[in-house]
């Protein structure tokens, strides 16, 4: 018998502070590739203890031979992720298109080419990989799919969820199952899907089909409809680019877990977010800095100036932020060539305590991997002094 996974400690408005398998929610699943956070060897991953769970797309499990996963005793053991929870999902976050599929399967890209994944093969990957959490296989459609297509995506996703649950029972698996809710941009389909899935014996819910170009208005009206159909006592996860403001908007509506690409996107483009999680501590510091150094136009004031618990309450739906600019430094810019400050003055993360903006600027411009490692450490790591 699996133990109760989710406990809510505090609720403010729709937002919840909780605990899910040792993860304090709201929280993020860190984006990973082929069993590691991009650029991170284990000692680097250990430098960001906040990261407790990794999102792994099914394509990445398929990168390893099934027999190898079985022989190694699962994905955690093979990839040396002994201290991290693995969350298996159908979706590759790097793709901005819905997962393509048909009546019986989806198609995923692997290093060996395009591979079909149906509920049976998906659950076989689950059997040999032993993830801690899995999202059910689903038929994903974007916001612009026709009403007919959206209905079909709900039918298939329900059918596939039942197949996944049956296989899960047969495997006597320990993992938690999240039902993946689809239905595209159709409010009605979304509601039906959420309601039907809430009746199944699942441990949580994954909100699929978002981050595919929909407007913020449509996104949040759909999320509200979906969440109104879901029970309070189970965690909800969403895959999104994960810009800081999107995260706050989702959390304020009652989403607990974010499968975000934002840290990785920033890192790959040479940006460092200077978006303090506890801005009160940093406000003075930053003011001093901007007074001392006026030639920093990129360094906008963080938008959410309040304590995170109250900002959850206060956060209002906002216009889509311009990607990758809010509260971030473009460290490739030559204005940082002689900047001997850390990414975020006062921050205690590895990157900030050891290296300067000038050094990282040099590494990024020289295409050295260490530049990406430092950025990723910073972006994924602690921001608090």
């Amino acid at each position: 018998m699996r133990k109760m996974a989710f406990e809510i400690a505090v609720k403010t408005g729709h937002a919840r502070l909780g605990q899910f398998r040792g993860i304090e929610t709201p929280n993020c699943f860190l984006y990973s590739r082929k069993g590691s956070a991009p650029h991170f060897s284990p000692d680097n991953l250990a430098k960001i203890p906040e990261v407790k769970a990794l999102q792994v797309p099914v394509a990445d499990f398929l990168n390893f031979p099934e027999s190898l996963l079985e022989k190694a005793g699962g994905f955690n053991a093979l990839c040396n992720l002994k201290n991290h929870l693995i969350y298996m999902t159908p979706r590759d976050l790097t793709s901005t298109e819905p997962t393509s599929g048909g009546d019986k399967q989806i198609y995923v890209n692997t290093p060996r080419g395009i591979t079909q994944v149906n509920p049976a093969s998906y659950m076989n990957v689950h059997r040999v990989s032993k993830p801690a959490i899995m999202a059910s296989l689903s038929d994903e459609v974007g916001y612009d799919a026709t009403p007919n297509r959206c209905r079909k995506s709900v039918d298939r996703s329900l059918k596939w969820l039942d197949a996944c649950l049956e296989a899960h029972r047969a495997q006597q698996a320990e993992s938690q199952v999240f039902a993946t809710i689809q239905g595209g941009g159709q409010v009605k389909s979304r509601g039906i899907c959420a309601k039907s899935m809430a009746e199944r014996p699942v441990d949580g819910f994954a909100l699929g089909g978002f981050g595919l170009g929909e407007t913020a208005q449509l996104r949040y009206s759909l999320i509200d409809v979906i969440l109104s159909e879901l029970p309070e006592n189970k965690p909800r996860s969403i895959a999104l680019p994960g810009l800081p403001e999107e995260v706050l908007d989702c959390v304020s509506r009652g989403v607990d877990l974010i499968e975000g690409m934002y840290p990785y996107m920033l890192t790959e483009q040479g940006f460092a977010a200077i978006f303090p999680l506890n801005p009160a501590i940093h406000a003075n510091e930053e003011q001093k800095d901007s007074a001392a150094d006026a030639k920093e136009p990129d360094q906008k004031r963080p938008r959410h100036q309040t304590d995170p618990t109250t900002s959850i309450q206060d956060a209002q739906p906002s216009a889509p932020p311009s990607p990758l600019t809010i509260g971030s430094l473009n460290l490739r810019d030559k204005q940082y060539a002689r900047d001997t400050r850390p990414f975020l003055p006062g921050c205690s993360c590895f990157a900030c305590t050891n290296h300067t903006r000038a050094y990282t600027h040099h590494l990024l411009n020289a295409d050295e991997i260490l530049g990406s490692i430092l950025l990723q450490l910073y972006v994924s790591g602690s921001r608090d002094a």
Partner: protein
Amino acid sequence: PSALRYEVIAQCKQTRARASVVHLPHGPVETPVFMPVGTQGTIKALTLEQVESIGYQIILSNTYHLALRPTADLLDDLGGLHKFMNWKRNILTDSGGFQMVSLLELSQVTEEGVTFRSPIDGSPMLLTPEMSIQLQNKIGSDIMMALDDVVSSVSVDRERFVEATHRTLRWIDRCINAHQKPQTQNLFGIVQGGLDAELRALCLEGMLQRDAYLPGYAIGGVSGGEDKNAFWRVVEQCTARLPPQKPRYCMGVGYPLDLVVCTALGVDMYDCVYPARTARFGTALVPQGLLRLKNAEFAQDLAPIDSTCACPTCQQYSRAYLHSVVAQESVASSLITCHNLFYMKRLMNEARQAIIQQRFPQFVIDFLTTMFLREDSSSDNEGVVAGTVPQWVVDALAVAGIDV
């Protein structure tokens, strides 16, 4: 004046091998030592914390690359390369000349210096001995290399070698005169002379006349793909003549086998991009030779790269995992680079301990036995047939005092 103290800990009674400590401004360096190459102010794919935790006490950086980016002036303004990288231990920089001659097609050596076209805007530029030293003074390295006239070791033009040998001696005087910080930075002279014993002797004698200004010496021009037979003879000739109370550095040498042979001949310091570069292509160094992790035979192999290795990679990852991510994810480069640099450090540590305990000849025999007289086929050694120690190794070690 010098910012270096060379302390011999042990001298092998049978060979020329010695274990020593080179005391430098940023701490001690135990020899024999392999120096990893950090071309652009970073060891590729590793954090400096990882490099330090492997035990490295000195790394190499390239003046030419640093002068282009982030520039020597910037490094000078920000307090030098150590501070810029946050690397608290020692740094050796090359002169920049070799990089130009090897990287830039249109470079040309004249009496004044090395002329070349700027890789940034194509404009004609000149690197003189004075400028090379000035750049290295600004970078702030613990050991600086003199600008020398490098000729490819496989060139056959003897006149060119004669000219280069004499010019290298004229340039060493210009380097010595240009050196502004002999109290905090050490200038090493480089012995050139190609593969010609007479020219080597001439260059050696010339350098020794400047001994008062040179805290250490390098053997140059021996890692350009020349015949191994010629290679070891040049090294042997130089170590026989160089003063025993100063460090000897064999430039650009980095195959494990070469390190063991040259250590027996009395060399203290080495550098090479090979261990890190080969790691990025998926090849791991092991006592038996090389492990090419891309090979299909490792797809299901849950053993570590080397079961005798204590590195973090071998403690945590299997050959099968590395096989699956090699050449796809940058983390594979990090993991295999970490192993290879750990392997090089361990090899040098073991050689050092063997010298100190007066069992270095046996260490060499054991090393060769593991590498060449083995039966398994899971590793290879760059085309060398298992079961035979190469003749040049046998010959070099015979002169060093070891019967293979």
